[in-house]
């Protein structure tokens, strides 16, 4: 977390300086109250206005230093969080991958938002923590200047009292926190039930869901009430301790004043200062907690940023023009695909199909084998340059917010290509059904469209890239049979002359391929046209036609 914060050191320093001035101003207020009341006994009206003027000047100073100090601290904090957020995003999107390994998307989002904000919060903690230290020192100087015994009493008495309240408060606070978590669960359950509303409704399980929620809510209620009681007890302890402290200072101060060791005004100032000290000292409490949280957050961010990449080495560029010949020899699977061929790959094992996609896009390198493009091993190629030549689209592929046109063209493809791709994927029909056609805006992952419509737009996007090698995994599972057959024919036409690999069990798609490779039990079981395999291989028939 250091480098991200170091970048903001000027803002942090400015913030700390100004916050310190603000605290000095806040310390001066009770001190000045004592001074002014003192003047009532033996000063003139001129003195009153002089000191009120001083009070006014202090107020102007403390107000402006607070204003700009708080802004500098907040800016440093937000900027740090923003920088880290972008670093996490870039790391996740890095073309060699690896950051998502073992982390769910939701967890990564929470790292990019909550954890970066907590680390950013350190800037604010430094600003106010520094100011609190200075405020304590400044108060101590003032108190010692008023009276050395009184000053020592305050300075030596306060830390153990603070420690005592922490000591009593800590376990109470921890208990209250765990019970708060218990309470948060209740709203979690509610959100979950609402998210599954259609399922609940579909089964008419409303009453069961309601009674389940009631139960959880009552458990949470009991927990929060316990936690609130604990909290109240803690507040009572703090009130008692600070009251005790004030009583001791006032009594000792009064006795010192009677003995003439301090003036009455100084007595009033001392009481005011002792009350004031509680503020900065409690700042130390939350600053410490913030630092601890930020350290944990920082570790999580660091773990993402330094996650090992999924594929190492290789920075060559594919030879251009790319011919599109693929040669794969991994474990017992040997696959040769000629340039310009349209090949279907049928895998009985879903994991094998997914692995094939990962290997061809170099999302991972084979542990035990080699994949080649035009005779060059993929492991020697820079991943991003490789993906310009070989586009492998997974079955679950996301659409992003924006117009349909932008989603398909990716701001690269020519309008004519986009039109052709839309027509080939039968996505033009989807666009025609929307009021703004190609310029219709897809919000929220295009969730207003049906599954089949989303699939067709995603397919159009893949086709519009005109990649030399295109690998598609089950691109039409949510499309009806007539449309699927139409898409298959047009897809073949649009890809004419370029290598196309269809990893699928859909007969409509397989029927338009030149050749089908059938993977079963970790090896190529059969090869041939779809018709021949369907006629000759019982397992193939079961996999594809059942």
């Amino acid at each position, binding site marked *: 977390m250091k480098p991200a914060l170091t970048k903001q050191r000027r803002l942090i320093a400015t913030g700390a300086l100004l916050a310190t001035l603000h605290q000095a101003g806040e310390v001066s207020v009770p001190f000045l109250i004592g001074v002014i*009341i003192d003047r009532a*006994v033996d000063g003139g009206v001129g003195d*009153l206005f002089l000191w009120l003027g001083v*009070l006014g000047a202090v107020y102007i100073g403390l*107000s402006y230093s*607070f204003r700009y100090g708080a*802004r500098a601290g907040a800016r440093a904090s*937000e900027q740090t969080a*923003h920088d880290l*957020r972008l670093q996490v*995003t870039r790391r*996740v*999107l890095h073309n060699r991958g690896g950051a*998502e390994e073992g982390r*769910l998307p939701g967890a990564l989002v929470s790292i990019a938002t909550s954890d970066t904000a907590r680390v950013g919060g350190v800037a604010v903690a430094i600003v106010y923590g520094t100011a609190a230290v200075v405020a304590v020192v400044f108060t101590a100087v003032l108190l010692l200047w008023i009276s050395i015994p009184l000053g020592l009493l305050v300075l030596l008495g306060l830390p153990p009292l603070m420690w005592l309240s922490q000591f009593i408060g800590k376990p109470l606070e921890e208990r209250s926190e765990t019970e708060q978590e218990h309470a948060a669960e*209740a709203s979690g359950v509610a*959100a979950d039930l*609402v998210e599954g*509303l*259609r*399922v*609940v*409704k579909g*089964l008419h*399980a*409303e009453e*069961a869901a309601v009674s389940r929620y*009631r139960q959880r809510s009552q458990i949470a209620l009991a927990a929060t009430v316990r936690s*609130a009681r604990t909290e*109240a*007890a803690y*507040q*009572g302890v703090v009130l*008692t301790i*600070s*009251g005790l402290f004030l*009583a001791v200072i006032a009594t000792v101060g*009064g*006795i010192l*004043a*009677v003995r003439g060791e301090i003036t*009455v005004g100084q007595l009033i100032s001392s*009481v*005011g200062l002792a009350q004031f000290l509680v503020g900065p000292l409690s700042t130390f409490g939350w600053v410490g907690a913030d630092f601890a949280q930020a350290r944990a957050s920082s570790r999580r961010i660091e773990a993402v940023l330094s996650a090992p990449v999924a594929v190492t080495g290789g920075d060559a560029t594919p030879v251009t023009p790319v011919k599109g010949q693929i040669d794969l020899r991994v474990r017992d699977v040997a696959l040769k695909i000629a340039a310009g061929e349209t090949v279907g790959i049928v895998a*009985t094992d879903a994991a094998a199909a997914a692995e094939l996609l990962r290997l061809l896009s170099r999302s991972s390198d084979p542990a035990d084998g080699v994949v080649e493009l035009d005779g060059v091993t993929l492991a020697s190629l820079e991943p*991003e340059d490789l*993906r310009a030549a070989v586009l492998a689209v*997974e079955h679950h*592929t996301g659409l*992003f917010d924006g117009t349909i046109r932008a989603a398909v063209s990716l701001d690269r493809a020519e309008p004519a290509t986009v039109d052709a791709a839309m027509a080939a994927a039968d996505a033009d029909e989807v666009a025609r059904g929307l009021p703004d056609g190609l310029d219709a805006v897809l919000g929220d992952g295009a969730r207003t469209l*049906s599954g089949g419509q989303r699939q067709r737009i995603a397919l159009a996007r893949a086709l519009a890239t005109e990649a030399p090698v295109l690998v598609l995994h*089950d691109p039409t*599972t*949510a*499309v*009806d049979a*007539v449309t699927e057959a139409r898409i298959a024919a047009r897809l073949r036409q649009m890809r004419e002359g370029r290598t196309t690999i269809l990893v699928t*069990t859909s*007969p409509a798609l397989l029927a338009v391929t030149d050749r089908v490779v059938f993977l079963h039990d970790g090896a190529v079981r059969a090869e041939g046209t779809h018709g021949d395999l369907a006629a000759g291989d019982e397992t193939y028939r079961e996999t594809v036609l*059942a």
Partner: protein
Amino acid sequence: MTTTLLPIATGARTRSVVLGFLRPQRARLAGALTLLVAGTIAGLVAPPLLGHIVDLATKDGSTGDFVLAGAGLVGAALFEAVLAGLGIALLAQVGEDTLARLRERFVESALRLPLEQVEKAGAGDLTSRVTNDVAVVAEAARTALPEFTRALLTIVLTLGGMAVLDWRFLVAALLAVPVQAYTVRWYARRAVPLYARQRVAVGAQQHQLLATIDGATTIRAFRIAGEHSGRVAARSQQAVDLLLQGVALQTRFYARLHVAEFAGLAAVLATGFFLVRGDAVSIGTATAAALYFHGLFNPVNVALALVDDAQAAASGLNRLVGVASLTTPARAGSESSDAPSAIEVRGLTFGYHPDRPVLHEVDLTVARGERVAVVGSTGAGKTSLAKVIAGVHDPLSGSVAVPAGEVALITQEVHVFAGPLAEDLRLARPAATDEELWAALAAVDALDWVSKLPEGIETEVGSGGHTLTAAQSQQLAFARLILADPPVAILDEATAEAGSAGARMLERVATAALQGRTAVIVAHRLTQAVTADRVVVLENGRVVQNGPHEALVAEPGPYAVLWQAWSGQRTH
């Protein structure tokens, strides 16, 4: 589709509902307030006692006098601690109790809302109420409300205390009020719209991050990482700018309050100065007044800063009460009768807009125990027909009756409820024994993977628990169907999202789950049509063919075309 948001209650309606919730707690609430008032008064004894110590110092008080005054201070602190502590605890209990009943009523109303209404409002509306609004209101009830109550009591009672010292102190202190009143209005006018924009921007940032991170594989494949980093950066910067604007606004708010503080403090000090010189009050009294006023800074800041929290909570509360006070009667079970058919659809016309029907004059009779497949190209009206039969939507004209009784609807939308797997299943049949659960799991071929889960059926699944695949989640959906055991089941492409390999397994499972039920199956995979007793072909919202698979394949028509495309090279 136009969206009609779910109702939002008016302020007056919300007040009356909340008061209704509070009524049974009247005694507790009164007790809490009494304790808090007593505690605050005990705390306010301190400044006059400190003033008394100052007076003793000027009048050569004895050590015993000082110790007595100090003991008074300790006593006051103890009283304050005990009374305020009890008051806080009691107030929290009232607040939490009310909150719990409100959220229970809300969830109950939300779950009973007709699905049609939820869909019209967009799924986001209800979700945002149940997450954001419940959280905002809970936070307010838990922290803001008690703090605000205590601050308000402290302010009012302190001002009272100043009046007791000398009415002129009160007048001086009130000099600050016009500035504070102006400041709060000034702030609220700017803060409310700014915070609304802030929430939108933070939401947009979150949404963009999720879309980008979730789509990382796609982004890498299409080499659009640069553009997406840019999108995230723009969203994040927007949120940061608005957050900083908020901080700037707050500092300007406090600057105005500083003016009020100074004006009031100067007035109180000057009043004290002249009153002491005129021998109207002792120096101790002037001290007490100054300490009173200095002690007001914090509560005033707390109370005023909570104004915008209070506004956010109030609008959240209006949205909760809007749904909570909808009285949707508990759903009566479908009227079953002894009619020979299970489902009777007569002259059904249906559309999401009255002028754009998607189903025209549909007639369909399904016999008891019959299995009917509904096929047709995308947009033919298959899903709409399924939903109308299931009672999600009402027909525009014509009638739908289900003499067989209860209808269950299973869609391709899978949801696994967070919590132990067994509890998920028991939503369908709350009284199910473990044996029944295992039997249902066995029937849907899930025995294998469920028994491999770390804690079997007690394993936490769903959000925050063990993640299940799409196919496993759909298996659970079928297991729930078996447990709910309705006479009629409607499957809307319930096997579609699992990919082609998973779809075959799910079709087997579906067949098992539908054993002994009347079923309407919306299918795009024609394998389901082949095994059905009868096939209904929809085209542009009309039934164009109706008959068993073998018959329809043989006659010229859309089904034969569909079958040709589907089977393609299948028939060799």
